[in-house]
């Protein structure tokens, strides 16, 4: 099926080490338009590090990145944004002292013709997108430190969605959320998928992976254990990949 088309993202043999320890060791994963690929593994397995090479937070020591078949170099977060790669970090990466609009447009502020910040326009745009993502959101004029976990999450998501992302990286987007908000994120993922975005989803909760992802790539100790289509495997298969580092196919 989609695997025959050109992948939206292809990470090839990515390696990066910190202080002599290989955090990511020759890992290759790919992502197609309209697909959700789950990245799984224990803490320290290298998922977040791998994905930070794509979002520009880290520079890979070896390996290549292809976007829609073309080789690209991503040296910093700005390069990633230029490739329409948006990231929702586990820490949310919000400046707590700024309000929602300032965070949403951070690094990409709307400016007036005379070169000054267009605060009203930015707030108006923020109100529009928040009305779509989280209609209960009303706190536009307070710093985001005054918001609840779910509200902060929706600001971080709005930031990723607003700028017409083609590739979305979500690092445990539901870790800090209650059941209702988790459901909201799940719906959003389905909607974005329909729009043709490719999504890398780092997730601990195996149920969410089975529900939301098309494929799952499992990492252990910096190495890729394997990538499987979620339909073809059971929860137990994936768990054994995570825990034992064994691919169910190898069983036999």
């Amino acid at each position, binding site marked *: 099926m989609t695997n025959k088309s050109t992948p939206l993202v292809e990470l090839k043999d990515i390696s990066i080490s910190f202080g002599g320890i290989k955090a990511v060791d020759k890992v290759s994963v790919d992502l197609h338009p309209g697909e959700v690929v789950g990245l799984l593994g224990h803490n320290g397995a290298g998922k977040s590090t791998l994905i930070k090479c794509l979002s520009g937070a880290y520079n890979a020591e070896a390996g290549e990145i292809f976007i829609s078949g073309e080789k690209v170099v991503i040296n910093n*977060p*700005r390069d990633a944004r230029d490739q329409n790669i948006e990231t929702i970090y586990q*820490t949310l*990466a*919000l*400046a707590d002292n*700024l309000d929602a609009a300032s965070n949403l447009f*951070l690094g990409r502020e709307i400016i007036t013709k005379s070169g*000054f910040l267009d605060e*009203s326009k930015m707030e108006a745009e923020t109100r529009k997108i928040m009305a779509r993502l989280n209609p209960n959101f009303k706190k536009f004029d307070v710093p985001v430190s005054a918001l609840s976990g779910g509200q902060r999450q929706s600001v971080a998501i709005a930031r990723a969605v607003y700028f017409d992302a083609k590739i979305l990286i979500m690092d445990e987007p539901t870790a800090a959320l209650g059941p209702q908000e988790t459901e909201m994120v799940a719906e959003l993922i389905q909607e974005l998928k329909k729009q043709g975005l490719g999504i890398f989803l780092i997730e601990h909760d195996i149920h969410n992976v089975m529900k939301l992802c098309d494929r799952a790539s499992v990492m252990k100790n910096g190495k890729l254990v394997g990538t499987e289509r979620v339909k073809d495997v059971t929860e137990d298969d994936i768990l054994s990949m995570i825990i034992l580092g064994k691919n169910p196919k190898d069983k036999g």
Partner: protein
Amino acid sequence: MNDTTSSNNADDKQESFISRFIAATEIDPRLLGMLGALALIWFGFHFYGVIFNNFGAFLTPRNLWNLSVQTSSIGIMATGMVLVIVTRNIDLSVGSMIGVIAMAMGLLQVEYLPQFVGLGHWSIWMIAVVFGLVFGTLIGALHGWLIAYREIPAFIVTLGGLMVWRGMAFLSGGGRTISPVDPTFALLGGGPYGAVGATTSWIIGIIACLGVAYIIYSGRQSRIKHNFNLRPMWAEVMLALVGCATILGSVVLVNSYPWPKGIVRQYGARIGQDLEGTFISHGFAIPVLILAAVGIGMTILMTRTRFGRYVFAIGGNPEAASLAGIDTKWVTMKVFALMGMLTAIASVIASARLNSATNALGILDELYVIAAAVIGGTSLAGGVGKIYGAILGALVMQSLQSGMVLIGFDSAIQRIVVGMVLVFAVYLDIVYNKRVKK
């Protein structure tokens, strides 16, 4: 969801007038607190004088005019210190930088330039000022480079700077006092000739009032355009009236402080008229106008430009700022370069006011500048700070000091009081922040 429940309590009616007032005008309660503290200091010193010395010297045009001039140099640096502290840094070197920049400008206009363009040449003051600004910016940029790109803590870099630049000031002048500075340069420090006079002060005051009215009007228009909540009309009108009254009141104040008799006579002799007994107003002092211009410029920079937004973002969460694609190192270096430039402006004013450059110029200024920024609500944890707060903070510090001089406290007691006020002001801020969080 739960924020509707808290305010519908009948017991709250008492305090709700003030909170409604604050909500309607959208004034920062801390601003009101600072103005209250200022009023307390001013009236306190004045009535202390009335009661114990039979003369209230504080609330006189003369004292308040002098106070405004004395505040300029610290106030200008405090606006830059806000940016430094907001980005979680500190600058301990500004006092020493004042000294070395003043010494460089002094030597330039007293010893070097006269050799090339002739003594008293019209261009001397401009060359000296431009040189000072460039020199200050370069020193600041050097500090910023060491801090941002070489990752040496700001505390260490600027502590080193505190010693290095003071030493340089001594070396370059050989310990001498360089005096007198160019007469046009000296005007930048204030004094009767360094003030703009009654008519110009009125013109400036009226332009400033129009500016206030325009800001309030255009703010309202922009809210209407985007369908945001509007301030009630009475609040808008009141803000405009209070703003204009403050501005015009200060015009009346500076215009009611006349030139001393000796200066009037001297001026009369120079223009060949007998001005004996003529009332000539000071008007706004030039350094005060420089402070006002710096304050407006820095406020625009901090609240209306990307640079200002990035400064706050770096202070709030450096990692988030860099993940958002902000070049945090470059911004940090620019912040210190700007601090250097503002210090140079302060150095121009301080040496012009003294009509000389000395080794000791600016000693301990770094502490007053940091104290002014902190009293003005800048948080040492980073991310929070206001330009007008820092200027008010400088005014509070200077009011305390000149008030104590007026009632005859000696300098040891002055330091004790200023030190305690600093600690107390920060404590109040912490208490306030805790209450707001609840």
